[in-house]
């Protein structure tokens, strides 16, 4: 039995390898046949005085065989002495004269391309192709027969409002509706914060501070009271949003307190007088924009305007919650940064806190330009991510899943964002489990199992999903 199984595995493997190796040859043979069929279609157009259709047929042929002499001549090209083709100076715009025969033309064209489409479908159904080859064969078939049910079936597509799409495209649309509801709940249904007196430990910090609180959270600081109230709403909100979106019941720590300082210069008073910060630790905190204070349930932010402070403190708190709920830390850069950015933006519409190294792929100027674009609040990250995945050398998802947050490049950050969005919208049922497994160091395996395909194939899949997310 084991010998038989071994032989079967070997044969299957050889079959797959053969299909991959033979792919280009089979595509080329099908193209040659298609050219013949299109020549026949062009001749039919000529016989029916459908000159515009004939021109389209020759243009089709040139995409398949750029040296096709009859097509070149038919399109008005002339041959130079050195053998090169010279385009007509004033291309003619031909006309179709027989309206009756024109109605028959689409069916004739479909018949001419049917053999080619059939060959591509046969390649897909034969199996053993690489993800890239599958994508190419499917694209070739759909180019001539966009509604081909066999190809869409093979791709696992479903019919959506805008034609054939990935099943996740339909799922994600429904999930986004749910997510909007979660955000509304998170921001509007929590207990309302109200002004409260300072606690004794807060009074020991020599700053003119006020405080607001809910039953589970205090926000204290030198910023206007309205900002304290907004920050309390946002911090409560991110706790609730994580619970709803990722199906966890993890909560803020008891006695959670957020310090918000209006002026960065005030940080010294806080750092010098916080009982949990030792003199040796002072130097570590001073250069930061804000921080979670180690060994306490305190978070502090002292940089930027109101939006910057709220964005920063939401990220700090979210980092704490993800660490407790899933053991996700900066070591799992894709999850820490990707989910951190997506959930923060879902809640408070900003993405101001992120880590990135200079790009390894882009040149310095392009990297700088990308960073500049991403920092702009109005930049559309999903479109940027789609363009990144369509670029000649996009970052590899498999590599991305190995990096810590401070190893991520600018493009990596963009890709983590797209990946987290995909998981939250399209794989909502699995997202909690993916995060839990990522926290144990099995992120790549967890993502692969959630999407049910290898990561190379997933890159193409993600790109297509992004293109359909409209």
């Amino acid at each position, binding site marked *: 039995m084991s010998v038989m199984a071994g032989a079967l595995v070997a044969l299957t493997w050889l079959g797959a390898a053969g299909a991959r190796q033979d792919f280009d040859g089979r595509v080329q043979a099908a193209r040659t046949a298609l050219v013949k069929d299109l020549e026949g279609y062009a001749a039919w157009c000529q016989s029916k005085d459908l000159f515009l259709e004939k021109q389209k047929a020759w243009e089709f042929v040139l995409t398949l065989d750029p040296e096709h002499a009859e097509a070149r001549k038919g399109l008005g090209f002339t041959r130079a002495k050195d053998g090169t083709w010279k385009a007509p100076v004033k291309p003619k715009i031909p006309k179709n004269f027989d309206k009756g025969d024109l109605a028959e033309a689409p069916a004739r064209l479909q018949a001419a391309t049917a053999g080619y489409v059939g060959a591509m479908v046969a390649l897909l159904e034969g199996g053993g192709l690489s993800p890239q080859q599958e994508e190419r064969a499917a694209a070739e078939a759909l180019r001539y027969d966009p509604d081909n049910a066999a190809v869409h079936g093979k791709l696992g597509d479903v019919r959506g409002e805008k034609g054939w799409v990935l099943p996740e495209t339909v799922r994600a*649309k429904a999930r*986004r*509706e749910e997510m*909007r509801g979660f*955000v*509304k709940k998170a*921001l*509007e249904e929590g207990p309302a914060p109200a002004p409260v007196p300072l606690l004794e430990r807060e009074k020991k910090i020599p700053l003119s501070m006020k405080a607001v609180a809910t039953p589970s959270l205090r926000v204290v600081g030198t910023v206007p009271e309205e900002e304290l109230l*907004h920050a309390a709403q*946002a911090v409560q909100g991110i706790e609730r949003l994580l619970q709803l979106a990722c199906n966890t019941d993890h909560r803020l720590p008891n006695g959670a307190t957020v310090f918000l300082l209006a002026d960065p210069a005030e940080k010294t008073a806080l750092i010098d007088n916080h009982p949990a910060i030792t003199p040796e630790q002072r130097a570590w905190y001073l250069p930061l*924009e804000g921080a979670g204070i180690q060994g306490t349930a305190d978070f502090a932010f002292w940089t*930027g*305007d*109101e*939006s*910057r402070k*709220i964005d920063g403190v939401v990220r700090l708190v979210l980092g704490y919650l993800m660490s407790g709920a899933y053991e996700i830390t900066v070591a799992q850069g894709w999850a820490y940064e990707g989910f951190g950015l997506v959930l923060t933006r879902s*809640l*408070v*519409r*900003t993405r*101001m806190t*992120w*880590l*990135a*190294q*200079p790009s390894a792929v882009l040149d310095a100027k392009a990297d*700088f*330009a990308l*960073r*500049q*674009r991403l*920092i*702009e*609040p109005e930049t*559309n*990250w*999903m*479109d940027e991510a*789609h*363009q990144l995945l*369509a*670029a000649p050398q996009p970052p590899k998802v498999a590599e991305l899943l190995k990096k810590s947050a401070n190893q991520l490049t600018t493009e990596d950050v963009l890709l983590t964002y797209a990946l987290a969005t995909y998981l939250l919208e399209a794989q909502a049922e699995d997202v909690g489990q993916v995060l839990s497994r990522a926290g144990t160091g099995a992120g790549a395996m967890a993502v692969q199992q959630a999407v049910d395909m290898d990561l190379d194939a997933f890159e193409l899949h993600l790109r297509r999903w*992004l*293109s359909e*997310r*409209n």
Partner: protein
Amino acid sequence: MSTVALSLVALLLAGGGDPTLHWKDKDYAFDALPPELPPAAHAAVGAWMAWAKTADYRMDLDPSARVLLVTRAANGHIEKQMELVAGVLERFDRELVAPAQRREVPPPASALEPKKPEKPAKTGDHPPLPEDPEDPEGGDHPWKIKPQTTTTAPEPVTVTRWGALDVPFDTETMVLLVLRNPDDFEVVLKSLGKTFPHLADWSKEAKALQGFVLPAPLVGAYLETHPSLEEWDPDHELVSRLARLSLLRRFGELPNWFALGYAWHLEIALQGAVYCFPWRDEFVWATEHTAWPHSIEQRYERERVKPGDFLAFVRGKYVDDMARASWAMVEYLVAKETAKLPDLLDELRVYREEHGRIMDDARTWHRDVDYEIPAAEQQALMLKHLGPYLDRATFWLRKELVPE
């Protein structure tokens, strides 16, 4: 500046002696400086006076209070040196006036309200994908606080020299130390390294040098004499280093070819020869000091000036052909393109400051001290300001560089 000045004083040993500041024909004790002394000059004197007392140096300030020359107390050559200082300043002011309006350096990515970055050309075959497909404007979102945006006209700003402790252009007093021996040179380097953290590494390596010119603090130094120095003329050093300090003070850091070219231009104009050859380690022939004009004339009789002849002359390595061509191009620019130079130099400064940054993370960066503007970018700026200047320069070098 005052904080830095105080710390420099604190690092250097206090001592005795009876040194003075000589300014406008009067001598002043360091503890009785005249009230009309401009603050920048006051700061410069304050920064170096403790060391001057200890090491027995005197200070001479030019009447405009722009140059503080620090030399050994028993200096019988000071009148000639101050004449050279005056000569450099007079020529510099005449030839290179300050830009009528200085450009601001665009902020890096860390600034939250920069100009809108350019969108790259679309590569895909579809319109932009929406970020929030079902709520593209975000109108339904319950969170309404938006990041601050600048809606009022920006405040007028004072343009300052990058890395120069936010000192505005053309305000600082240049300090030029003429050091009597390598021991004094080493003491100065040590104190600079301790006072200015960004100079700590450099100050250790600089012991092998015979002088320096620094942008921040704005100070130059050279050895008055040294047993190993042949073909060394301290007066030429004074002219050369003061020329470079003057450029830094007015225009910030400029491409090497221009900074050295201008220093050589003033050496020849004021001293009639070239004696300063930074980074050169091969023998200097006695005939070389005065041979540059004729050698350039002969070279460009045979060929045309090309951008690579001088634009690629970078710091750290002396290349004789490029050095001469750099000087020649500055001669041409000063003679024929004077009016266009201030704006060109200002744009070169901005380009360097804008592109010579290394991003540490999304929000912080540090300066790439070795950054050189690529020759092609320099050429583009030259063409923008001067038009097709290379043929004009070639013709001028052939016909007018050397008077008939």
